[in-house]
């Protein structure tokens, strides 16, 4: 298969397949969770905390003050990677162009050099996260195959995207095809690995905040 044919396949049928698996998988996982239900809490809630679940969805994105001093590296790497990843995903001009074409929604892009730098930072953070996972006793202890696979699945699009933009390592067309394929792989596995936290964390935070709010605990 020529580079171009691969690219065309990735853009066409490949994307279709990936999106189908992704959507079905996500729905399945959500059904898995919600079908279990939650018993109604019969105790009288403390007043004025009905929004605690929603609030926690946002507030839990902030670092915990008391933990920050204990485990700064985890926070630093975590934020750098996540913010970088989302900037690269959402504010890189060609990506926005793609969104405009497919879902009809667009927004202003950030300057390419900025996105470029941020992507590099994100890659470095992700590399450090892997190193830290291997080095840190608790993280190493907790880690399973899923953690390393998810790491690779996340690193692939970032790295291939960066290399493609800079015409490094492989011919541009091939690298772009690889980039798109790696995104598709990420989509396919997202519902079935810990990458599913991208969705489920909102549900978890809501349940957590709602339970704490019920008791009037500050969040």
């Amino acid at each position, binding site marked *: 298969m020529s580079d171009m044919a691969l690219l065309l396949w990735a853009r066409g049928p490949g994307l279709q397949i990936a999106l189908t698996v992704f959507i079905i998988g996500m729905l399945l996982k959500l059904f898995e969770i919600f079908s279990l239900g939650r018993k109604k809490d019969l105790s009288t809630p403390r007043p004025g905390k009905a929004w605690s679940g929603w609030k926690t969805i946002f507030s839990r994105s902030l670092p*915990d003050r008391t933990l920050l001093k204990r485990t700064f590296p985890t926070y630093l790497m975590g934020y750098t990677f996540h913010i970088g990843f989302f900037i690269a995903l959402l504010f890189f001009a060609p990506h926005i162009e793609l969104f405009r074409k497919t879902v009809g929604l667009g927004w202003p892009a950030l300057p390419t050099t900025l996105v470029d730098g941020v992507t590099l930072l994100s890659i470095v953070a992700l590399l450090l996260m892997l190193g830290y996972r291997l080095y840190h006793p608790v*993280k190493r202890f*907790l880690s399973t195959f899923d953690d390393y696979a998810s790491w690779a699945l996340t690193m692939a699009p970032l790295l291939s995207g960066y290399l493609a933009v800079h015409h490094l390592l492989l011919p541009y067309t091939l690298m772009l095809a690889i980039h798109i394929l790696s995104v598709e792989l990420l989509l396919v596995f997202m519902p079935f690995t810990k990458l599913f936290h991208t969705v489920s964390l909102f549900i978890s935070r809501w349940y957590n905040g709602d339970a704490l709010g019920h008791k009037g605990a500050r969040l």
Partner: protein
Amino acid sequence: MSASLERGLNAFREVMDAPIASFFNSCVHCGLCADACLFHTETGDPKYTPIHKLEPLRKLWKREYTVLGKLASLVGLGETVSDVELEEWSPLVYDSCTLCGRCTLVCPVGNDITYMIRKMREGMAAAGHAPAGLVEASRRTIELGSPMGIKLKAFMAQVHGQEEETGIEIPVDKAGTDYLVIMSSMEILGYPEYLGSLARIFRQAGISWTVSSEAFEATNSGIQIGVSDIARQIVSRVVDAAEQLGVKYVISPECGHAFSALRWEGPNLIGRPYKFEVVHVLELLDQLRKDGRLKTEGKTDKALTLHDPCQIVRRGGIVAEPRNLVNMVASDFREMEDPGMYNWCCGGGGGVSAITGAEELRFKVFRIKKRQIEGTGAGTMVTACANCRNVLEEGLEHYKMDTRMIGITELVAEHLKQEDAS
């Protein structure tokens, strides 16, 4: 598969709900919860990572509640939970978790780990892997009606003792009063002056109250061990007594776990809301203060610090109240590092203080409390939980610290305005 293991796994299945499924799905193995748990921070041992304490429950979830897990088990793959594993996990689920709730506050994806550990205990107990100390407490609850084996006679002796001490009559089984006072086992056994202090405060504030000869104790070992039947029995006793006496409010003892059991778990255990309200004694005292019905005089100039019981602050929302009360009677109140919401556990909550085999570990993790106390330079520590207090006193003793302890209700009572109190 043994019958007891099957019972345990069934209990796991029973507690499985959408929040737990969501929590297991969300964990990214970042390890942050470990840094929030005193059992990890003080030992450095990764096995005390909160989320790891749930491994058997997670395995069951994976196998039976996820599509991939179900597929894997069909072809004979995937992990199963064994009896040996549950036994191995007992020290993690009981000895090294006080249900303090710190992990729940910090998990970035929002996992309520404490909730899951509490639920997991149901399966552990059903499988026969609850620690002996808690099993004993539950046995005493069934046979004698009290986790510490306190009989009515012993309670009444304390009531009479406090009547003599204060010269105030303590009403017993008086119907139609506003408030019913319940104590924790530890208060009845070790700190009866709590009752005398309340009597003095209530006389000044003009509160109509009573104690009950049917339900005088709220410590709920059923919840700590994870056996709902026993938990329900203990709660029902309080509910029946309160509804028979027709009181408007039940005053929960200072003890945080007793409060949680009565306030939050109780209605769910008996399957309906109460006909009365449960108030924590600190909420009531602070309300009396606001209403001007609690009048004190003078302030101690001794340096005081405050230990926040986990179940009262983190899982009960009572943070400002004890501070208002302490500031009312003390001029040199010093906060610990990480106060209030983030305070560190005494190390003995959630039933841990009843587990004899866990004592060494408990003293080890007390070091964080020791550092907190020493950091304030205060010679006296106030707390609002007799169980915390007992555990703290043992810790202070173990480390030969000369910090004095006092219950917050007693502290306030000591400063009651004389003409009203004498």
